[in-house]
Structure formats: structure tokens, C-alpha cells
């Protein structure tokens, strides 16, 4: 649960996008798309929270559905948060959830629309589209119902399962345990014209494991076991593997122009998250 002080700090910030926004009405981003000018541009479906002055009553009468008129002007963008909810995220769920809330808050207060997808068991569980500051409690309420207990499928499968991904800003919050270092997932999101930022969340036990003796490690997600003699050399080998893995993820992100942030769940979230975003030029 984010503190009010932290949220008040977030109020002074807004998410940055490289590209022009493509959204509905009332956004704060410049867009090539139509806006609230006199020149009509397009329609889109009404989302609760939208400005009702832009409703097209004719379309309502015709289709018995609410549509919003779009004009050539600055529009909001769609911010998508893909939150990995597999079992491996349990150790760092608090930090991952906080990251999702913080990004969501920034999106909502910035006039962006927000979609939250929970990735687990090879599927994506999508939240309702949220807009406006008043939708933040619904965001937190949605997250309250989520548990990181996914044990099947892969992250890439779940990402590909996510629906409604339109061009916009996408935050992939995950521990990143894929063989290809998120390469395929990033390529897919790029294909969907997502401006993706990766927040890799790892626990202190993963970044700096302190083990010794003969251990039988059990994967919390797959149940796979691995017998290991946790001696000095084994720990050295783990650190080498970790460095290689992180380097691979960073390189994949870098090559796809996806900002990369490594979030240590052992650090106090509210002290390190804003600097992390700032360093990645996300705010």
C-alpha cells in the first residue's frame, strides 16, 4: 500500500513517452491523432470517467451505445501494466505490486488510460480500463484480489495472451526468468507498437544468496528440484550466471529501446522507485 506522502510526490510527476500519444479525449500528451478541436476525428467507446460533453448522442440513439467524439488535438495514451503474477514473484510481490500501483497512479493522474494485466499460468487476466485519479482505488482493489501463484505456462505465453494492447506505454513488471532474457516478449510488445519499459524485480535472496551446505532447492513455480552443494565455488558460479542473465536482459532491452530498471525488493520501495524511474527517464 503506497503511502499518501509517496502518492503526493507522484502527483508532481508524469510519465514520459518518446512517441506521440494515441488515445482518447482529454489526454495530456501531444498526439498526431485527433483531439478536442473543432475538427472531428473519430469515435471511440465511452469509458466511465470520460468527459460526457464529448458524447455523441446521435450514436447513442443509433447504436444504443455510448461513443465519444474524437477531435484533432492532444490526447491521453494508453498505459498498460503487465504484472507477472507467477509463483516466483511471491518473494518480491510487495515490491512488484507497489511498482504496478505507482505506475498506475502516474498514468491515472496523468490523464492516461490504464490497463492492468496479471500474467500467470500462460494467460493474462485484464483489469477493466481505468481512467482518472478516482479510478486508483479500483486499481488497488483489483490488485488486492491477485495472488502470485501461477505455476504453469511461460511469461512470453502470458504476454501474448494479453488482449487490447494498443499503441501506448507498456510497463512489464517481472523477474524475467525466461531462457531468451525477455527477447520474444519484448519483440511481441514492440510489434504491437508498445513503448515498453521493463521493471525487473528480484529479491535479496536472488541477488545475493547466502547459503551453505548440501541443499535441495525447490522451484516455487515449477516444483523442480536441484541438489546443490552450496559451497563458495557454487555461489561464485551463481553470481556469474546472475550477471550473465541480467546483462542479457539489459542488452535485449537496450537493443529494443526499452528502458530497463532493476528493482531490489530488499530496498525500501518508496525511497528507490522514483529515482529508478528518473534514472530511466520514465518520468
Amino acid at each position, binding site marked *: 500500500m503506497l503511502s499518501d506522502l509517496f502518492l503526493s510526490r507522484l502527483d508532481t510527476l508524469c510519465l514520459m513517452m518518446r512517441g506521440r500519444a494515441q488515445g482518447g479525449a482529454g489526454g495530456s500528451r501531444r498526439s498526431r491523432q485527433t483531439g478536442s478541436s473543432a475538427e472531428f476525428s473519430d469515435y471511440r467507446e465511452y469509458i466511465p470517467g470520460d468527459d460526457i460533453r464529448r458524447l455523441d448522442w446521435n450514436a447513442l440513439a443509433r447504436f444504443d451505445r455510448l461513443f465519444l467524439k474524437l477531435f484533432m488535438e492532444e490526447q491521453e495514451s494508453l498505459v498498460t501494466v503487465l504484472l507477472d503474477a507467477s*509463483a*516466483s*514473484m*511471491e*518473494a*518480491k510481490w510487495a515490491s512488484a505490486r507497489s511498482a504496478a500501483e505507482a505506475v498506475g497512479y502516474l498514468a491515472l493522474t496523468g490523464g492516461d488510460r490504464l490497463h492492468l494485466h496479471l500474467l500467470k499460468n500462460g494467460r493474462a487476466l485484464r483489469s477493466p480500463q481505468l481512467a482518472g485519479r478516482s479510478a486508483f482505488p479500483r486499481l488497488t482493489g483489483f490488485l488486492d484480489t491477485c495472488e502470485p501463484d501461477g505455476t504453469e505456462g511461460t511469461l512470453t505465453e502470458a504476454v501474448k495472451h494479453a488482449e487490447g494492447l494498443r499503441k501506448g506505454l507498456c510497463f512489464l513488471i517481472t*523477474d524475467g*526468468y525466461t531462457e531468451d532474457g525477455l527477447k520474444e516478449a519484448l519483440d511481441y510488445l514492440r510489434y504491437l507498437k508498445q513503448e515498453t519499459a521493463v521493471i525487473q524485480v528480484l*529479491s535479496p*535472496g*536472488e541477488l545475493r544468496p547466502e*547459503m*551453505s*551446505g*548440501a*541443499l*535441495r*532447492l*525447490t*522451484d*516455487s*513455480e*515449477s516444483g*523442480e*528440484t*536441484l*541438489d*546443490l*552443494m552450496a*559451497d*563458495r*565455488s*557454487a555461489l561464485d*558460479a*551463481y553470481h*556469474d*550466471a*546472475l550477471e*550473465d*542473465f541480467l546483462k542479457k536482459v539489459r542488452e535485449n532491452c537496450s537493443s529494443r529501446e526499452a528502458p530497463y530498471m532493476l528493482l531490489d525488493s530488499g530496498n525500501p520501495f518508496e525511497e528507490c522507485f522514483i529515482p529508478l524511474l528518473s534514472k530511466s527517464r520514465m518520468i
Partner: protein
Amino acid sequence: MIRFLSPGFAWALAAPAVILILYLLRRRYMPQQVPSVFLWRKSVKDYAANRPFQKLMKNLLLPLQLLAAVVLALALMRPAISGGAAGRTILVFDVSGSMQAVSDGRSRLDAAKEEALRLIADLPAEEEITVLAAGAETERLALKADKETAEKAVGRLECGRDTADMDRALSLADAVSRDGEKDLTATVIVFSDTYRPEQMNVRGAKFLLKIVNCGTGEENRAVYSLEAENGQAYARVANFGGACTVSLTCEADGVLCDAREVDIPEGGTAGVRFAIPETAEHVRVSLRETDALKEDNSAEAAVKHTVARKAAVTSDSVFLESALRVRPDLTVLRTENDALASTEADLYILGTSPMIFTRTLPEGGYDPEAAAFGSFSWETGEKEVSGSPALSLSESPLTGGLTLKNVFFRSIRPVSGGRPAVTLGGDPIVSWTDDAVVIGFDLHESNLPLKYDFPVLIQNILDWLLPEQAETAEAGIAPMPLAESDVRTVAPGYEPEGRRTESEKGRELTGSLLVLFLLLLIAEMGVSRYVH
């Protein structure tokens, strides 16, 4: 050949098996859940692929530990190498009486034998071994023999009752060590309870002397003297220890006849008198208490019986009879010349001047008027003595203890024949043969009977003609020399000084194995540190 000095530690060889079992049992993995084994799987793959040396080091740990356990077990068993250059070993055993002293259930000689057998076993097969027993005489039990013969010789060793003449034994050992064409190093090992290196008195000895002390300090009491005569037995007891009271029994001809208790001060002696039957032939006095050396707790002796003698005297001289009665075994019979033939006596004292002392009467009887007796002769008349003629004594059995100062004679009857013992002015007045003594003057004509020389002269004559005799039975076992009874050995205790633990003739490997064990331990610690 390798042998183990402490084979009892062979059980320690099971330690490697225990280590192996523990090693196998140790392989128990503690379960631990992790978010993902993704990275661990990769690291194990890299670990196995990129660090073969690590696997080697891990595999090296168990063999190092097993080897260290085996080395330690062998070190505990104290392996020793027998062999090396053969030489010459001379074993000298003190077989004096004190070596029979018992400590911890075995005699000192038995302890010496055991140690000697161990020493022999350690020697090279080609060693020349000589075994000498040092008693009053030195006995050679084995000369330049092999190990088996030497062992048998050691088994034949027995103690005597006399003091050991170690100088003689070591002189013989020195001769043996030099004997032969081979230039072999010689070692003399003395097994004794009292001998010390500073006592060695063999000049120019070139052998290596080692001493094996056999004995610890023990207290002891001994019957060291026993005499028996005429119904009495006299014993002396010595105490080599603290003040005590001992009980002594006396047996005469195997029958207990008397018992006494006597207090003896520390380090002192005491005399005891026992009453024994007059007719006893043999006595034995024994200590009832047991101590370190039982061989000196009793002594045996034959009882001396004095034989009664008779002297038949024809002259009438109070002085003579008084002098004769000094001999306790002599009975004086006064008789007449006529009755001499019928008087049985051991000594006949005939006439007055001359006075003849003889063991036997002549065949024809004694003629007091005759001027000769046997080889003696004399003048028929007395010779007056005037002035102070010189009185001289010849060295003879009769003149011992005589001075004859201020002895005067009124008249004499010089004696011819025989050997003169006393002359007066050149005239023999006392002469003697093997069978008779003639005094050539009347006792009443001299002041000699008033002098102390007179009974001395008479006793000398009696000792010559009638020596004291005692009938004794066969003597028993003589007491042990007093020095042997003192078994308060000052040595610190039984320590096998002569045991070879390191020399060119054999080497114990314990030290080397312990060093190896330490090195293995250091290596195991290093490998373990590296692995972990």
C-alpha cells in the same frame, strides 16, 4: 621386517570405515524453496563445465581424510623396522641373590629375561649374541649365537645366592667384543638391579654399554648369621627397611623347638638365642613374615658338639691341674704310675722332672727312672742354675704368647732330642715332637707356675697335642651374603634403558607417521577450506 610395538591399537584401523560411513550419511540435502532454480541450474552447469579442478578437489577430500586416519592408526600401533647392519650384542645378567627379589608378582630376573627377549627380537637376524650370567663366577650360556639360541640361553638363567662379580663378567664381555676378524660394533647390555655405569672397571673397553635396571626399591629382612653348639643356637637378623618386629622360628632336626619375636630398628640388626635339644644335629632358623626376597629369610647350620677329653696326671701339682682345667673339654684324672696301663686317657702327663706330655704310652709302659722317653733323653741329675742365663724362645707351636720375663729356675734337667722350644743358657728345657712335649725342669724349682706364661704354655702344649674337636653334622644352606639382602634398589624404577628405539640396528616409525599425519591434516584443512 616391520613389526608393531603396540599391536593392541589395531582397532584404530576401523576409523577409515567409520569416516566413509559418516561421509555417505552426511550426504543429506536440506530442503530449501527458492523463487526459481533457473539461475541455479545455469550456475551448476557452468560450475561443472568450467571448474573440473573443483570436482577434483572435492573428490580429493575424502581420500585425504581416509589416508590420514589410516596413518594415525598405524602410528598408534608403533611400527618399527627391524634390521640393518648386523653387529655383536653381549647380554650380561646379574644373577646375584638380590635378583630374586619379587616386585609386582615377578622376580627381578624374570623381568630382566622378558626385556632381554624383547631386545633379542628387535635385533637383525645376523646379529651375534652372547649371553653371560654374572654370579660369583661368570658363566657363558651362549657365545656369538643366533637369536634362537640366545633366547634359549636366556630361558636357562637362574639366580644364585652370592654377590655378582660384574668386573669379571664385563672383562669377559670385552674379550668377546674384540674377538674375531669381523669389525663389528659391539654393545654390552647389563641387566642388574644395582649396577651403575660408574662402577665399570674395564680399562680400554670399546663396547657400547647400556644398563637395564631391573628392580624397584623394596624392604627386606634377612637371617644372615647362624651358629649352633651345645644346646644353643645363635642367629642374627638384619633389617633393610623401616623399624619392625619380626617372628623367628627355630627347628632342630625338622622339629619346631623354639620361637622368638624380636624388634629391629630401621636399618639395624638384632641377635636371637634359641634353646635346642642337646642331641640336635641340624638347626634351621626362619622368618615367618614374607618380604621381597624370601631366599634370605632362613638359614641352616649344623650343630657343633664338643668331644670330652681326659688327661691322666701322675704328678702332684696344683698349678698344673689348675692350668689343665682351663680347657672345658678336658677332664683331669690323677693316677699313679702303676695304674697308668689301665688308665685310658687322651693325654698322659708323666713325671715331674722332666715332665712328659704324651698322647700315647710306650709299649713297655712308663719307667719313671728311665732317662729317655721316645726320642727324648735327659741327664740323670739336676743341673743347678746359677746367675741369670739367657732364656730364649724358639718359634714353635708351644711358644705362642710367651714372654717368660722374670722367670727363674733353681735347677733344670736339659732335654736332648726333639725340637727345642725354650732354652736356658743354651740348654733346652722345653722340647717337642709331633707326639710329645718334655719340660726339663721341676715346676717346684721355678717361679714359672706363678707367672701367667705358665697356663699359656700348658694350653699351647694341649692345643698341640690335644687340639679341640667338635663333631658336626653336614652343614646346611649357608646364609646369603648380607649385601645381597639389601634390595632397596635406588633406581627410579624399571625402565628398559637398553631397549633400542633408534639405532642403525632398527628404527621405530611412529615419529615419521605422526609427521605424515600432520601433513595430511594440513592438506585436508587446506582442501576443505578451498572447497567450502
